[in-house]
């Protein structure tokens, strides 16, 4: 399994004046589910790029500090190794598409072909992912003509087909309806059970809060706070930080391990009352 780490990491895009990331120290332990939250333009996507190695590979600029995977700096890995270990899902699912393949099957295979898997292995993996994500009815369709929600699922597929140890997802739910969002939740929940290291960049904190082990609040390129969900929000409340807080419903699901999910505020209130009467 895999641990990702940024130490004293700062980055400035070429041609801009300010550092977008400032002295980031972040350790994402193996099997840990991390949520990165912050306002528009806080640098969340840039942080995702840094964790995947897109910075400095694609974006030029000034980079300070180190990026490490399993205690070794990124430079010690080949591109092929990093591609297999760290999966990255773009904010815009169009970016994930190769745009050169004409069917979904070929698009999924493309991931495997690039890292050099043999045909047998590629077919096996693609079949498994198609089953897992319930995509069999789309397998011969051209991804260009599918809906954004379907594209998002496909984008996830192009990553999962390589079975990476680390998954980085940049606002995957922005294009999804509630049902598909719930499905994504279930997939991520399963992946977490498999011991994957997951990094989720999200605006919408409620939906995934119960999976979160580690919360990172990003503000203007610096880490405002990080830790467990309860710790971070308790601290924030006590000093009156002006940040986005989760709903009571979502927060409760993280502290009570319940068999049935809390679906609305009414459920939450019932549980709260239950907790009170036990006292």
């Amino acid at each position, binding site marked *: 399994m895999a641990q990702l780490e940024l130490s004293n990491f700062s980055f400035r895009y070429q041609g801009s004046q300010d550092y977008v990331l400032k002295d980031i120290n972040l350790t994402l332990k193996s099997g840990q589910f991390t949520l990165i939250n912050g306002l528009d333009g806080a640098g969340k996507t840039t942080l995702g790029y840094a964790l*995947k190695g*897109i910075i400095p*590979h*694609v974006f030029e600029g000034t980079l300070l500090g180190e990026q490490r995977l399993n205690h070794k700096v990124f430079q010690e890995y080949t*591109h*092929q190794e990093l*591609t297999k270990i760290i999966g*990255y899902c*773009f904010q*815009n699912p*169009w*970016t*994930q*598409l*190769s*745009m*050169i*393949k*004409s069917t979904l*099957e*070929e698009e999924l*295979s*493309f*991931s495997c*072909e*690039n*890292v*050099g*898997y*043999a*045909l047998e292995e*590629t*077919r096996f993996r693609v079949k498994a992912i198609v089953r897992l994500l319930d995509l069999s009815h789309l397998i011969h369709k051209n991804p*260009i003509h599918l809906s954004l929600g379907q594209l998002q699922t496909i984008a996830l597929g*192009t990553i999962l087909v390589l079975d990476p140890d680390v998954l980085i997802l940049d606002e995957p739910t922005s294009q999804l309806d509630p049902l598909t969002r719930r499905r994504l939740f279930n997939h991520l929940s399963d992946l977490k059970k498999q011991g994957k290291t997951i990094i989720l960049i999200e605006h919408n904190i409620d939906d995934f809060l119960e999976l979160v082990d580690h919360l990172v609040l990003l503000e203007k390129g610096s880490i405002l706070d990080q830790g467990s969900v309860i710790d971070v929000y308790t601290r924030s409340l006590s000093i009156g930080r002006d940040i986005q807080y989760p709903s009571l419903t979502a927060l409760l699901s993280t502290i009570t391990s319940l068999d049935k999910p809390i679906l609305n505020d009414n459920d939450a209130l019932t549980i709260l009352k239950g907790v009170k009467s036990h006292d």
Partner: protein
Amino acid sequence: MFIEKIHPHTKVIFTMAMIFLSVLNDYTFSFYIIIPIMFVLHLINRSIQTFITSLIIVIPYLFMLMLIYGLLGELTDSNWIVIFNFKLNETVLIDILNRSKSVVVMIFMLSTLFKHTSSDSMLLAFSKHTSIKAISFIFMNVKNSLSHLRLRANNILIAQQTRGINTQGFIITRLRALWPMIMPLTMSAMLDSQERQLTLYVRGFDIESQRDNIETLKKHKLEVLFELLIVGLVIFSILSEVTIWLN
């Protein structure tokens, strides 16, 4: 639809050879041999619209050349107004045809090559060479990006229709409806190339590895024979040119 099925190598070799030969020979080769061949090929292939599209590009191009000749005063003892009286003399016409022959051939050959070769098969054919592969990736995805762009433009039109803006009818009306979106659309198209670079990296396309593709591409013996023939023709042309030059 046989042009689509020909191996990309064969098509690329044929295209390059014809362009090369058009440079080597005078205008008669381009205008009396290559273009008629392309016409017949498209006729058989039932893709005459590709041929017509090329014509639509070529004809204004030739007219423009005539105009430039006129403006530069290269039409001896006459001026550009003469062009509109169609008083071109033969030597000038031949000169223009000779100067434009390769560009014209290029337009016919390349439009055929790109319109009738799927991006996948092109990529597959050249996937052994990493550098060529990266270039063809950029070129090839232009096709898909364009249809993506068209899709987005269409969505915008539909959205405006639902808001009650008239998008039907003449091109001018459509353009007016699209106009406010032209900047965002071009911006997103430009950003797309950065996006492609990200895709390239994240999907591992630039990894140098032996690839085992799910689609396969076999070259027929006839195609190999044809390639050899074309290469032979080019070599023969060069040799004969050299001997003429030596004498």
